[in-house]
């Protein structure tokens, strides 16, 4: 095991942790708009770290290019899908719960 392998171990551990965090956030956060933030964690950090860890283990430049393209595509479409969802929910009349600083009571759940 050399230095690159250790870096890729660390990256994959961070990525796995970020994915679990996103899943837990989907379950634990109180309302739809808050849960959307959890979805963003997996798109950005989870996939980023896991793919970076895999890129360090890849055997050919072709694999590197593919990992890069998939990540770029997800970075482009993930936020767009979440934005479309949140906008549709807002237009359908779903009200975001507000915290204490804006007069709501969604501080804890």
């Amino acid at each position: 095991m050399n230095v690159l392998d250790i870096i890729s171990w660390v990256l994959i551990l961070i990525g796995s942790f970020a994915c679990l965090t996103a899943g837990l956030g989907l379950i634990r956060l109180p309302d739809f708009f808050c849960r959307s933030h959890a979805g963003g964690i997996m798109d950005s950090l989870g996939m980023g770290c896991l793919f970076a860890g895999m890129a360090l283990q890849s055997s050919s430049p072709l694999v590197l290019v593919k990992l890069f393209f998939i990540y770029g595509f997800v970075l482009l479409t993930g936020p767009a899908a979440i934005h479309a969802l949140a906008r549709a929910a807002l237009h359908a009349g779903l009200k975001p719960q507000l915290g204490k600083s804006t007069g709501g009571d969604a501080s804890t759940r």
Partner: protein
Amino acid sequence: MRKFTTLIVLTASWLAWSGHYDGLLLSFGAASVLCVFYLLNRIGLAALDPRSAKTFLKMVPYLPWLLREIIKSNIDVAKIIWQPKISIDPAVREIPATQETALGLVTFANSVTLTPGTLSINATPGSLTVHALEAAAFDGEGFSEMDRRVTGLEN
């Protein structure tokens, strides 16, 4: 001429993806490139707008900055999610967006959504409606700095 650039980009991406370079598969590749080019032409996207091309090129130095912001806010949100009793302070507010082009606005809205903890829920020219997990996100210079940087990509 600009359409020619599109053709070259399509061909290059096919070659990067395929990894097989014998006669039959190359002819399939040429066929699919022409097919995609025909469809792009039909929806009027075959010629890349030079201003957009410039914006894309300028994004290269912007991405590392965005990456740092993403990592910072990821840590914040992860802390919120793993605390035993979730205590958050969600807020919705409109923030100004000074971008002129649609691509600039999309980049700004996507950047806001991509940093966990803030989520753009409506985008109109001139302003962005943002939902934040912590109302404190609106306090500092965070959004105005991101707005300034994205506007800087445009020209």
